[in-house]
């Protein structure tokens, strides 16, 4: 039992660090540091740089182009990504649909999709939630009815993150309704967003951004070949994917980076003649958050170590999701506190240049904190709400 890095691990860390120093584009870095939303092209460019390095698919099996890294290497890579404030790869292709395709998809599907996903030639989005099916995902109503060698898809998916950028969508759809358990009638379908009948409508969220969408399907004809695995087994495939998503959501490395920035901010903010960081109440809460985050980091490492010796990321990933999002939201709140009055101005992008009157009203600064706070209220709801996670743990871990 030891926590220090081995020589090989240290060498790997240095290699990753050098990569970020040399290959992470300055213009992306500047956008990230100033909290400016990346464009579709920005995301694709960064993905392709990682792809060239062979680091686009951290978790994939080596035979499909994955890294084959140990848990410790993955941990190091996540930390260095966060410390460089580099964007994460957009997860829908690499982290979400690909594991389903390489685990359950046909040989033909693997050859058709995996290389393009790996090289970011194809933008994916997720079609799970529906207006009437949130926590109760199994109640989804989007139907795929067989008609010759096609399915005809009708229905509505919602909260589709970056759906307006997507080339393809992976969906859970209902292919049978006369089944014993609702879950059994659900299939996993890949749909080209260019198919006639697919339309995307923006949802503007509380802080005024377009991040999520509603996707409508009206008599959309999808080749039977686009079914992954067996008809009626989509629920099982989707669940595997959700567990991957949940681990992903914890965001420990990112929170560590943000906590360090919060400390910087508090050290440079004068509050009643002394730095805010020296305010005992603020400092105490910051320390409490840091302790919680240190604990979560080790909980994640323990989980990854268990996965490495062959255990699947089981219901324990729910703990990571709950605690990870709680910490993120506490960080959001403390950034708002540190910003003080400057959290309040709601400054849409177009206006910002005119606000050079005070550097704190510019981009990527205090004026973003409240918007981020509001935006990120979603974190305890998405990926399966934290209440649903607790139900899962109660049932599958505690046996209640």
């Amino acid at each position, binding site marked *: 039992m030891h926590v220090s890095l081995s020589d090989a691990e240290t060498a790997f860390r240095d290699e990753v660090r050098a990569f970020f120093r040399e290959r992470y584009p300055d213009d992306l870095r500047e956008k990230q540091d100033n909290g400016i939303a990346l464009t579709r092209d920005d995301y694709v460019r960064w993905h392709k740089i990682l792809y060239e390095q062979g680091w686009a698919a951290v978790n994939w099996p080596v035979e499909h182009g994955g890294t084959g890294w140990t848990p410790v290497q993955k941990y190091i890579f996540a930390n260095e990504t966060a410390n460089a404030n580099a964007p994460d790869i957009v997860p829908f292709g690499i982290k979400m649909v690909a594991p389903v395709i390489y685990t359950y998809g046909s040989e033909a599907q693997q050859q058709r999709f995996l290389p393009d996903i790996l090289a970011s030639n194809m933008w994916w989005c997720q079609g799970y939630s529906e207006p*009437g*099916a*949130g*926590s*109760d995902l199994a*109640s989804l109503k989007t139907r795929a009815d067989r008609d010759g060698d096609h399915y005809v898809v009708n229905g509505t998916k919602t909260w589709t993150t970056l759906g307006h950028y997507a080339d393809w969508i992976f969906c859970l759809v209902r292919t049978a309704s006369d089944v014993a358990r609702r879950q059994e009638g659900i299939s996993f379908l890949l749909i080209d967003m260019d198919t006639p009948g697919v339309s995307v409508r923006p949802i503007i969220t509380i*802080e005024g951004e377009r991040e999520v969408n509603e996707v409508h399907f009206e008599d959309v004809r999808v080749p039977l070949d686009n079914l992954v695995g067996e008809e009626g087994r989509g629920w099982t495939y989707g669940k595997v994917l959700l567990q991957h998503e949940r681990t992903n959501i914890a965001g420990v490395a990112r929170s560590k980076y943000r906590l360090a920035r919060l400390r910087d901010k508090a050290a440079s*903010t*004068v*509050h*009643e*003649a002394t730095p805010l960081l020296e305010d005992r109440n603020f400092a105490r809460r910051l320390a409490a958050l840091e302790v919680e985050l240190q604990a979560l980091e080790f909980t994640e490492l323990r989980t990854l170590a268990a996965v490495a010796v062959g255990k699947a990321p089981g219901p324990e990933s729910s703990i990571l999701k709950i605690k990870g999002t709680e910490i993120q939201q506490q960080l959001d*709140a403390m950034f708002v506190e540190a910003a*003080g*009055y*400057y*959290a*309040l*101005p*709601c*400054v849409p992008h177009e*206006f910002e240049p*005119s*606000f050079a*009157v*005070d550097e*704190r*009203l510019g981009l990527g600064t205090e004026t973003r904190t*409240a*918007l981020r706070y*509001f935006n990120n209220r979603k974190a305890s709801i998405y990926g399966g709400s934290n*209440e649903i996670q*607790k139900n899962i743990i109660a049932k599958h871990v505690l046996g209640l």
Partner: protein
Amino acid sequence: MDFSITEEQSMLADSVARYIDNEYSFEQRMRIAEGDAAFSQEVWQKCAELGWTAMLFPEADGGFDGGAVELMLIMQQLGRGLVVEPFLANVVLAGGVLRRVGDEAQKQRWLAGVIDGTRQAALAFAEPQSRYDLANVATTARPEGDGWLLNGRKTLVLNGGDADVIIVPARTAGEQRDRDGIGLFAVPADADGLARRCYKTVDAHGAAELTLADVRVGSDALLGDAAGGHETIAAVIDDATLAVCAEAVGIMRALHDKTVEYSKQRIQFGVPIGSFQALQHRMVDTLMACEQTRSLLYRATMLQGEGSPDASRAISALKYQVGTAGRYV
């Protein structure tokens, strides 16, 4: 000790509540909030017509002699409707200063218009470096000729974009964080050297950043004592804190009610989500947070209304509770 309100107070609360219910729907509110203007002139005229803008001022100034209880009743309802019109900025902040230390001429010139809703006013109590320390004033006022020369910056001036007059605290003496040596100056919005950048806040209220570069005002711009402004601001901010807390209680309760209502309608797993015990207990917790906050609101309102020496601490206790319970709800 008596928790009941008078018939007049009850009528006032009903009047605001009716207006919100009938004429200030959430859709109407969002139209105003998302529009270019900071607020609706039409709504504001209505507030004046219905007597709310006059409510808190002495009869001698043309008001209705209302106090802390009236303030609380109005603000709770404005909170319930998420009203964006500048009641706080005009009536409580700027009006609060003018009422306390304005002389007759100043009241005639600035306060009368606030009371009848024809003029807009603001109080610029925050500076870029000040955070929540009201005595931290770097803006300076230097005597020049018969009047004063003002220089400095003010931040988050509520209603600052629409105000016809802005009350500017400025340092006439002392160090940057001294309580003594702060004067309050009524600065016309069109004064030379006064620049403002307008924006909306995250809760859709109008606000502005101000820069004052050699702004000249006459001796009649000084409100009250040239060095004793801090005491006035502190008293006004006590009222304003009580006001925003009352607003918050209105918001919290509306949020709680809407959540409970939605939980009865939203079906998941074949049942209303309000039937899940975890959510029931959470809604009970928010109910308790609302009721505990309301209790502190009544407590602070009564103490403030009676001019109790404990009022200021009671308002702080209330503010603390609003800060924690409000985030929870």
